[in-house]
């Protein structure tokens, strides 16, 4: 035994081999990227659902993000930049989350067996989190790639044409379900994982959090499906003029609608 050591085993470990700090950083990064993405999805839903207030409302939101009201003309590349950032976040989040995925079939099947045995809601929710996360990586990629490469094709008619005439609606139905489930469960998990909203009565708080989680998911699903239905309706009505851009009434200088790819204000 060493004598004269002021502390017994364990203390002063930090003087020796230091453990990597990366697990802590990666864990924080996973939570942070998830939080940002979840908040982004709320904002995204709010903007997209502006179609429920009318085509002009959605047009205004779109033009706002293209910088139209700042620069006097549209710069869809601004949207592309935001999309690129979202893609980067999604990829980061997915890579970080992969660490938690079952890495082989044995792990997967033992988790599945465990889940079936336990019939425990939070355990089952995690399984859904994994499934929807996995699906999202593919579904969201398709949508994000289109948004990245054709940011100019966002608008009341443009989006509706994509939804209906370009047959994106089946993808969007699944994407919507996956996003809202994944985001809702994720936010709930974040709250319990980091002990936000700590309270003396942890059980009651968890019940309330879970209630809030389901309420949010339900709200965004209803809003999302109403929005999707609105685009489908417009898309169906507009299918014979596929490709035509939307020009709000106050900017129409001639009764002839603007041709595809034309400037927004003065149809050539």
């Amino acid at each position: 035994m060493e004598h004269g050591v002021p502390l017994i085993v364990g203390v002063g470990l930090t003087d020796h081999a230091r453990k990597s700090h990366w697990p802590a950083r990666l864990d924080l990064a996973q939570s942070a990227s998830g939080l940002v993405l979840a908040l982004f999805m709320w904002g995204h839903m709010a903007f997209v659902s502006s179609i429920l207030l009318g085509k002009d409302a959605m047009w205004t939101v779109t033009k706002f993000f293209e910088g139209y009201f700042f620069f006097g003309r549209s710069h869809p590349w601004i949207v592309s930049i935001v999309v690129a950032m979202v893609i980067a976040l999604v990829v980061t989040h997915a890579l970080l989350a992969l660490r938690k995925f079952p890495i082989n079939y044995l792990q997967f099947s033992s988790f599945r067996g465990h889940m079936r045995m336990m019939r425990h809601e939070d355990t089952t929710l995690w399984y859904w989190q994994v499934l929807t996360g996995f699906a999202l990586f593919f579904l969201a990629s398709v949508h994000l790639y289109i948004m990245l490469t054709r940011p100019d094709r966002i608008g009341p008619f443009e989006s509706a044409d994509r939804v209906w005439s370009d047959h994106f609606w089946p993808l969007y139905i699944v994407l919507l379900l996956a996003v809202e489930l994944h985001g809702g469960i994720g936010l709930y998990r974040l709250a319990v994982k980091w002990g936000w909203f700590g309270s003396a009565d942890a059980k009651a708080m968890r019940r309330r959090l879970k209630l809030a989680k389901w309420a949010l998911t339900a709200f965004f699903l209803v809003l999302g499906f109403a929005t999707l239905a609105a685009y489908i309706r417009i898309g169906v009505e507009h299918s014979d003029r596929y490709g035509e851009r939307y020009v709000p009434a106050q900017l129409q200088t001639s009764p002839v609608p603007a041709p595809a790819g034309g400037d927004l204000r003065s149809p050539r």
Partner: protein
Amino acid sequence: MTESAAMPSQSISPESAQRKVRISVLRYNPQERGSVPRMQTYELEEADGMTLFIALNEIREKQDASLQFDFVCRAGICGSCAMVINGRPGLACRTLTRSLGSEITLAPLPVFELIADLSVNTGKWMRAMSERLQAWVHMKQIEVDISRLEERMEPELAQKIYELDRCIECGCCVAGCGTARMREDFVGAVGLNKIARFRLDPRDARTDADFYELVGDDSGVFGCMSLLACHDVCPKALPLATQIAFVRRKMAGAGWK
């Protein structure tokens, strides 16, 4: 709090009419040549206030002397009678048969080494975990002066530490944990709770950086996926969700720098 945790948590239904219960046990003895895992069903008359512990003893006495299971205290203190009851880990001595249906399924706790039938070696696992997490107070002075008064501790703090010390190492939280089922090296809620306990203790000289060395990775606190089954199945109703979140915050803080 402690009082309520020591009482059976299930409510007893008023009707005291005797009923028959069928208890199916997953039986397997790895030590015995030719033993294969199988379900065996026993039928018995339910008695008033019958716990699974009483039922199992009755089976062993009257029906099948070869049935193996563990118990010591029969009062929810020793933690040896934990098993999977209708799919969820729990203590046999704290579970009233009345709180379950008439078909009861029992299985040994997963994760731990199986001794035979319902008996598992939680002790081995717990010891390895304790050694790995150095789950003891690391005192500041090495020379203990017994003539001097012990350092004082605020009663509130002592109470807080005691609250976490109520863990009986039954292993329910580990068996209920999806992460522990997938990763063998995960320290489990029981381990993380110990870290929270020693971190509270003012006599323990370890800093967050020291604790980070012990649980600052994916086999420690960052492996926990917050499924909270541990919290929901802990027979001592320990505040595991709160404690794990606390340890996670502290370790994220220690590791971020």
